[in-house]
C-alpha cells in the first residue's frame, strides 16, 4: 500500500463517519431510543462512579476534620475551608516537590523520545546481523519485573556517583522497553518503501527517521510521552530509594512524607486530602488538554500493554 492508497482508505473512513452522522439525524424507532437511553444511563452511572473519588478528595479537602469523620457523610462541605489547601501547601515544600517531579519527568520524556525512536527505527527498518535475537533480547528485558533490578541498579548508580542527584533520577529512567515497543509497533505500520525512497534520494538514516518517519507516527509519540510523563510523575519507590536529600523528593515521596509529618499519620485528613488534590492537579490539567490522545493511547498501547 502506498501513500495514495492509504489516503484513499482514510478518505473512505471519513465518508463512512459522515454517513453515520447523517443517519443519526433521522427519526429513530422507539425501541432503539429506549435502548440508547438505557445505554446513556449506564454510562452516566459508571462515569459518576469513576469521578466520585476525585470529587470526594477535593471536597474533603474543604471540610473540617470532624465533618470528614461524620456519619452519615455530607456530600457538600458545610463551610468551605480554603485554608486547608493553604495550610497543606505551606507546611511542606510542595512547590519544590512538584517542580522536581515535572522537571525530572519532562527530561525523561525528551530523552526517551530520542533514544526509543532510534531504537525502534533500528529494530524495524534497518538490516543487521542477529536482528531477530536482538529484538527478542530487548523483549526479554521487558519481562523482568522492575523490583528485581532495584538493588543492582542502585549499586551501579552508586559506582557512577549518581545517587542523590537529578542526573541519577533522570538517567536511571531514561531507557524504557515499553516506549521502544510502543514505537516499534508504530514504525511497523509505516511501509518500508518510504524508507527506501528516502535512501534513494540520499537521505541518511537519521534524516529518514526525523523527517519522514516521525511526522507519520506523531500520535504514537504523543501517547508515549503522555504515558511516560504520568508514570514518572507518579513514580514513588525507586526515586525514594536513590535520593536522601529532602530537596530532591518527588511529589509522591513528598506527599508520603507529608502524610507522616504534617498529616500526623492520618490525623489531619483535610490537609492530606487537600495536598493529594493539588499534587495530582498537573495530571488532571494534562488530561484535560490531551484527553483525545490519552483515549487513543488506550487503543494504541493495547498491543504492548504495561504490566
Amino acid at each position: 500500500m502506498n501513500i495514495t492508497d492509504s489516503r484513499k482508505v482514510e478518505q473512505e473512513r471519513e465518508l463512512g463517519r459522515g454517513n453515520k452522522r447523517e443517519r443519526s439525524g433521522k427519526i429513530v424507532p422507539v425501541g432503539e431510543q429506549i435502548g440508547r437511553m438505557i445505554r446513556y444511563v449506564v454510562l452516566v452511572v459508571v462515569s459518576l462512579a469513576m469521578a466520585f473519588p476525585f470529587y470526594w478528595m477535593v471536597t474533603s479537602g474543604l471540610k473540617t476534620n470532624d465533618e470528614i469523620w461524620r456519619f452519615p457523610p455530607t456530600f457538600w462541605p458545610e463551610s468551605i475551608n480554603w485554608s486547608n489547601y493553604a495550610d497543606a501547601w505551606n507546611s511542606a515544600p510542595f512547590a519544590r516537590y512538584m517542580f522536581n517531579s515535572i522537571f525530572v519527568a519532562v527530561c525523561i520524556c525528551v530523552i526517551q523520545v530520542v533514544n526509543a525512536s532510534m531504537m525502534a527505527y533500528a529494530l524495524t527498518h534497518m538490516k543487521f546481523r542477529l536482528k531477530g535475537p536482538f529484538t527478542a533480547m530487548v523483549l526479554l528485558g521487558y519481562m523482568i519485573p522492575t523490583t528485581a533490578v532495584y538493588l543492582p541498579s542502585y549499586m551501579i548508580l552508586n559506582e557512577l556517583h549518581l545517587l542523590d542527584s537529578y542526573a541519577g533520577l533522570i538517567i536511571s529512567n531514561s531507557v524504557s522497553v515499553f516506549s521502544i515497543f510502543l514505537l516499534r509497533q508504530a514504525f511497523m505500520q509505516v511501509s518500508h518503501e518510504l524508507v527506501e525512497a528516502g535512501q534513494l534520494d540520499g537521505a541518511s538514516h537519521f534524516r529518514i527517521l526525523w523527517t519522514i518517519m516521525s511526522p507519520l507516527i506523531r500520535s504514537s509519540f504523543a501517547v508515549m510521552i503522555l504515558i511516560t510523563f504520568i508514570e514518572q510523575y507518579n513514580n514513588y519507590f525507586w526515586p525514594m530509594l536513590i535520593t536522601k536529600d529532602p530537596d530532591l523528593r518527588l511529589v509522591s515521596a513528598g506527599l508520603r512524607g507529608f502524610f507522616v509529618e504534617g498529616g500526623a499519620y492520618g490525623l489531619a485528613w483535610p490537609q492530606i486530602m487537600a495536598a493529594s488534590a493539588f499534587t495530582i492537579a498537573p495530571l488532571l490539567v494534562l488530561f484535560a488538554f490531551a484527553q483525545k490522545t490519552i483515549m487513543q493511547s488506550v487503543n494504541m498501547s493495547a498491543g504492548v500493554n504495561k504490566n
Partner: protein
Amino acid sequence: MKQGLKRSWKSGMSMLLAASFTLLAACGSSTGETPSAAASGTPAAAESSKPVEIEFWYGLGGNLGDNMKAKIDAFNVSQDEVIVKGIAQADYTETEQKLQAAIASNNVPAAVLSSNIDWARKGYYASLDDLIAADANFKAEDFVQTFLDQGKVDGKQYFLPMYGTTQVMYYRKDALEAAGIDPASLTTWEALADAAAKMTKKEGGKTTFYGWEPMWGEGNMIDAALSRGGSVLSEDGKTVTIDSPEWIETWEHFRKWIHEDQIMRIHSGGQGWEYWYKTIDDVMKNKAAGYTGSSGDQGDLDFGIVAAMEQPGWEGVGEGKPVASAIQAGIVAKASPEQQQAAFKWFTYFMQTENTADWSMKTGYIAVRQSALDDPAFKAFSEKNPQISVPLQQASHASVPFQDPTGGKITDALKVAADQVQINNVPAEQALKEAQAKAQSELDRISK
C-alpha cells in the same frame, strides 16, 4: 547502528542485572563475616584533628523529627570531633529499605536508627562490645535492663536503646470520678472490667459510651497474657505455649468484654494509623472512658482531661508484666573505624541522663536510664505532669519483647488469632489452638 549498540548494552545489562540479583542476595550473607572483624580494632584509633563527619539515618517525622534535629544540632555544637549529618526518612521501614540498598553498594551511613537481629548475625551491623569496653563512662547498670538486653544478639551488644515504648492505660478523669471509681484501685484486669461495666452506657441495646477501648492488634492482649504468667515459648524454646490456660483465659475475657458484655470496643482496619486515632478520638470526645495506648501518645493527648496509669495485673497473680520495647540504633559494619567511633560517641551523647530525660519529656517516649528519674528537670516536670513517669515505672517491671526465632511467623499467627477474637468473635480457645498449631509447625521447621 551506533545507537543500536548502545541500546543493546543497556538492555543486555538489565538482563545481566536480573540474573545477578539472586547471586547478590547470596553474596550478601557471605561477605558478612569480614567487616565486623575489621571493625573491632577501632577503639585505639588515634583521633585526627579534623572532625569526623558521619551520617545518621532516622525514620522520624513531625514532632519526633524536630526533636531529633534539635538533638543532633546540640551534639554538633557540644564538641568538635564529630559532625553528625541527620538524614530523615518517612518511617522506620523506609530506613531499613534504604539501608539494605546502601549496604549492598558499600556506601553506608555510620549510624542508623534501625535494628535487625538477622542482619546483626549476618555481620551487617558492628558489634559494640569493644567500643563499650573502651568507654569508662558507659554505665550499663544504669540502663533499663530490658532495653539493653534487647540489643544483645548471641550475647554481644549490637544495638543501643535510644528510647523506649510500652503500652499504658489512659483514662478520662471525669468518667471515673462520675462513677465513683478510684483509679488507684484499678490494679487488676478484673477490677478494670468491673469499672468498665459500671461506666458503660447503653441505649436500646446499643452501647453509646464504652467502659474501655483496648487497642486493635495482638499487642495488648499479649501484654495481658504475659501479666497472667503466660509465655510465648517454653523455657527450652522448643514448644509454642500460646494455647496454655493463661493465654486462653486472658483472651477469652477480652472476647467476652468486647462481644458479649459490649463494654469494650475495638476500632479496626482503615488507612495506616486510622484505628489508633479513632480510638484516641473516642476517648477525647467523651465516647469512651479510656483506652490502652502507647507511651508515645502523650504528645497527642490533653492531660487536662485524661490521666495515665500502668497496665493492670491479674487477681492472685501480681502486678502487670507488659512488654516494654526499645527503639534501637546500630552502627553499620561497613563504616570505617573512625566513623564507627564517631557514631558511638553520638549514641552515648543521646543516651546521657539529661538528654534521654529531655527526649522523654518532649516526646512522651521512655527514657532509657533509671537515673532519668533523678534528673532535676525531669523531676520538676513529672511533678506537674505525673503521666510522664508512668511508662518508665512500668518499664522497670516489664517483659522483654518476644524475639521471634521464625522471623515473624509466630507473631503473624498471634496477629491472626487476635483478629479472630477481637473482630470475629471466635472463642479464644479455638483461635489460640489454631495459632499454636501453625506457630509450632513453623518453629519445628527451623529447629530441624
